[in-house]
């Protein structure tokens, strides 16, 4: 057998070092914490898988996970169809194209904690433009600091405002790549608007939609800054999503072991859902 050229390793080395420092080592420290108990002073006691069991069995984790899935589900159910509809109704050429694109991109350019603060001020019942208008002009009781329902509506609307543009821009790019001949052929074939959407536009948008859903899933599942600045997880625990709960355990209670175990479970869930979804969506392309 001919010996392989071992010099190749040299070329991969920089990447390996980089990955080691920005991913492997940080994750390994978390793994290290997740199987031990520490009281500070660099004293560690072997704990095995106890923390994992404790987290997986705790009602607090179940509740946060439930809220997390509810949030992600809600925003996906709104942002994806809404994004498609907006992309479909955007002009294809002319003066309004750049106007629409720039307007769409604006919310995405705003720093996340600024978005949270903006919506906080905007919806405060006594001083916020929207809050005041709803409570004092329309007489609709709406207070996201007191009512869990109002808090939920606010964080969902905020996320829709912030991120629908991403779905729109991706879908719009997908739509623009469809040659005119497809629409002309469909016209001649007598296809209805629905058939054009179902058999031409949707299949051509499939790749970008997969990416859009994947990005929105990961981002919303890991969301922290915006709801934290907006509601701080309240009122009560009603908007305490997984990441907010994690930070409370890790930095509030300083329970590093359980927090590490929870991080790993959290990471595994994100990874698993993304992988399953991606595999399902690209299954047809290979055969």
């Amino acid at each position: 057998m001919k010996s392989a050229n071992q010099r190749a390793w040299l070329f991969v080395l920089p990447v390996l070092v980089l990955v080691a420092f920005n991913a492997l080592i940080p994750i390994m420290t978390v793994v290290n914490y997740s199987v031990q108990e520490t009281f500070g002073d660099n004293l560690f006691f072997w704990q095995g898988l106890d923390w994992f069991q404790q987290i997986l069995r705790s009602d607090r984790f179940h509740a946060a996970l439930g809220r997390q899935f509810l949030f992600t589900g809600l925003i996906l159910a709104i942002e994806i169809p809404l994004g498609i509809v907006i992309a479909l109704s955007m002009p294809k050429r002319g003066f309004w194209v750049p106007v629409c694109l720039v307007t769409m991109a604006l919310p995405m350019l705003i720093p996340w904690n600024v978005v949270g603060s903006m919506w906080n001020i905007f919806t405060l019942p006594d001083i916020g433009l929207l809050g005041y208008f709803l409570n004092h002009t329309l007489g609709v009781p709406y207070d996201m600091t007191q009512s869990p329902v109002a808090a939920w509506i606010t964080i969902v609307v905020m996320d829709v405002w912030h991120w629908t543009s991403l779905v729109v821009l991706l879908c719009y790019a997908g739509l623009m790549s469809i040659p005119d001949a497809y629409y002309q052929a469909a016209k001649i074939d007598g296809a209805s608007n629905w058939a054009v959407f179902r058999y031409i536009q949707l299949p051509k948008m499939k790749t970008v939609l997969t990416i859009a859903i994947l990005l929105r899933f990961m981002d919303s599942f890991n969301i922290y800054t915006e709801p934290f600045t907006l509601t701080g997880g309240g009122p009560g625990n009603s908007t305490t999503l997984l990441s907010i709960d994690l930070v409370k355990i890790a930095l509030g209670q300083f329970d590093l072991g359980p927090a590490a175990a929870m991080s790993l479970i959290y990471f595994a869930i994100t990874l698993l859902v993304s992988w399953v979804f991606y595999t399902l969506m690209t299954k047809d392309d290979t055969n």
Partner: protein
Amino acid sequence: MARITLQNVRHSYLPNPDGDDDYALKEIDHSWEDGGAYALLGPSGCGKSTLLNIISGLRAPSEGRILFGDEDVTDLPPDKRNIAQVFQFPVIYDTMTVYDNLAFPLRNRGRNEKIVKERVTAIAEMLEVTPMLKTRAANLSPDNKQKISMGRGLVRNDVNVVMFDEPLTVIDPHLKWKLRLKLKELHHRVNATMIYVTHDQTEALTFADQVVVMDLGVIVQIGTPVELFERPAHTFVGHFIGSPGMNILPCEIRDGGAFFRGQNVALEGPVTRSGERTEIGVRPEYVTLAPTGIEGVVRKAADIGRHNVIEVVAGDTRISVVSDGNLPEQGETVHLQFRQDQTRLYADGWLASKARS
């Protein structure tokens, strides 16, 4: 099925056309007989695709009317005109099977599944795609995709006209022949009017009974392939059709005769009119090397298989000769004779001599 009439159709892509140059189609007045096989031939940008889109209804003409039979369809959308069009790049519905692709135009028109099945099976048989009916259309090769596009046009048995917009552009050369013959065969079987747009003369001449030659937004000549070859109505047709194209020699008209570089050239017959620019037109096939005649120097001589192509320069005019005789040397001085009944006069580009009867 019906005869298609274009009445004074003009089209401009500008909102306020000003003068003839602003029109992509200058003035088209033409009828397409029911069941004919037509080719629309012309260089890129001559307006042939515009004309096609106007017939199909994808574009509304700036002026003029379009009639299918006696019905004015100028304001009808494509799906109401009962036409079919095959595009340059195959259009197929990726997510559907081949069967569903072919059935799509019928299902959209609410035909019942029994009729759909009958038609799709028949068309698949004609196109020789029966074994692929169950496969997903996205997985086909380009030529099969284009076959399916054609099939979707042919599957309705009541289409007025099937239009092809350079349909073989993306097909491999060796498959082009097969598809071209297939098209010809299909025309005989389905008996619909077919209009085939192309800039390739071989495609046009093999497919069509009648070839419509266009240039700069006008129809230059309509005729059978033989007519276009033998008697081009315009120097453009002479030059565009044939390989090499017709020889065009600038000439002077004196005493009813044509003179090229001071030498009288015998024309096919009397001169019908004159113009600012007069030219003699003769096909390379009708030029022979002879002991006397127009003098020139051989610039290039090549044996291209069946015959020789010789390029002679007389003054600054190039004259091509197609011959079977001996190949002259480059730089040799030769004399050329034109066959009289194939030597025509063109005034300002248009035919200006009449054959002796």
